[in-house]
């Protein structure tokens, strides 16, 4: 379970990226965070990953206070959260397989586990034949699928998607969304930040609308008409 307890992120006293957000996300849920640019979707995800520190409030991941962790402890929580970014954030000097393997190596998994899991997860995202390609040899949709494979490979409790389809065309967007749904069905909580109406409306899942850092609506089966 993820719980944001009255969380605010204030840059200067006139501009708050996130203001007094209280939010509970149950395990295995699929939640979309929507809103215009600057509404605070990305900031909310960054706060959960502790890429940014909250100004006020606490954030819990299964009872663990994320906001209380020191820099040296952050990797423990990050291994439990897989993240997919709009700009993919793949390591350019590593092949697709190595990018995925890196997350496992960092988590201290054995070579045997890595040899077994990496091809499996790349197969799951449909890239079994491009394992040895470097990121610059892959299309945008393929890069994002590598990123998803990397996010999944440590079997995280939560998968965060920060505008994962933002740089993709509609065909690739559709495939990524299908993949996210499949991952969710396999038992992973998915939190998807997006401003793509098409994506939200085809999902038919819980939708939280943010505006200027505040939650303005939260519907179990929502749509988004911005």
């Amino acid at each position, binding site marked *: 379970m993820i719980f944001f307890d009255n969380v605010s992120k204030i840059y200067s006293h006139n501009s708050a990226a996130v203001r007094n957000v209280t939010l509970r996300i149950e395990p295995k849920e699929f939640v979309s965070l929507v809103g215009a640019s600057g509404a605070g979707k990305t900031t909310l995800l960054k706060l959960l990953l502790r*890429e940014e520190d909250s100004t006020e409030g606490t954030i819990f991941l299964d009872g663990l206070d994320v906001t209380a962790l020191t*820099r040296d402890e952050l*990797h423990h929580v*990050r291994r439990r959260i897989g993240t997919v970014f709009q700009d993919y954030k793949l390591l350019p*000097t590593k092949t697709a397989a190595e990018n995925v393997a890196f*997350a496992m*190596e960092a988590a201290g998994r054995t070579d045997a586990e890595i040899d077994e899991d990496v091809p499996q997860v790349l197969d799951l995202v449909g890239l079994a034949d491009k394992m040895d390609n470097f990121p610059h040899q892959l299309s945008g949709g393929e890069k994002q699928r590598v990123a998803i494979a990397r*996010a999944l490979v440590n079997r995280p409790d939560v998968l965060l998607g920060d505008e994962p389809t933002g740089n993709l065309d509609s065909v690739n967007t559709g495939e990524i969304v299908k993949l996210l749904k499949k991952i969710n069905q396999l038992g992973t909580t998915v939190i998807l930040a997006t401003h793509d109406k098409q994506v939200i409306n085809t999902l038919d899942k819980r939708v939280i609308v943010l505006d200027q850092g505040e939650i303005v609506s939260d519907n179990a089966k929502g749509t988004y008409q911005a």
Partner: protein
Amino acid sequence: MKFITLQRVIRAGFLGFRRNGWLSTATTMVMTLVLFVLGNVVFVGAFADTALRSLESKIDITVYFTANAQEPQIMAVKNEIEALSDVRHVEYISRDAALARFRERHKENALIVSALEELGDNPLQASINIAAIDPGHYAAISDFLAGKKYPVVEKINYFENQAVIERLSSVMGTVRGSGAILTIILAFIAVLVAFNTIRLAIYTVREEIGIMRLVGASSWFIRGPFLISGVLYGVAATAVVLLVFFPIAWLASPKLAFLVPEFNLFTYFLSNLVQFSLIMLGTGVALGVISSFIAIRRYLNV
């Protein structure tokens, strides 16, 4: 840290060094230059030291005794001089010894030899040669002797050589002092250049460092390979600089020996090779590791 993690860190360090071929080459070259400067500082230091010592050994003062001075009286003076803490070495040359030396030096010259025969008596004076520990001390020693007003002492030649000795001793002081300052400045510049090169190398991969943090790598897991690369820069640069110094020492050796015959650069290089390599390796590795450690710190702050 688990063994498998350590193994991965080391492997990643080697892989990074190899895959970033150009960057590694450039960084190694800069580091090589740094070590080259440092090596030259060591050589120049050794050369200057030998040169100065050779000059210093040539300075002394001589006390001449009157012709009728008796050996026990001279010995009494000699003992007093030897008791001085500034004195390194005292040599007594009797009248007979002085004559023998004189004859030896001029045995080719028939005129001088025959003149000596003609004279019959020994015209030379007994003397004491004094070498000080520090050339700056000659004035004090000389003043001390003059102050004693020994009846048997005819003259002290310091007063004749005073200007030369004082100038030489002040030159030596300046050379040593400025040498030390120059060494510090050069070393400082060299360290800055090496540090900045490594900083630049790490700056180019700052985004990757951030990504690694976000996908759950611990600080040490990310930092480790860069420290290993830092070690490799140091090792590679040491290897290159040693290879460069062999021919340089060999070629420069005769030219330096011309200036200071006591100094043989190539022999000095070979006989101190282990020590020299260790200094280079220690400096290179320390510089690589410390620079990497400092440079990566801010990018790990994700």
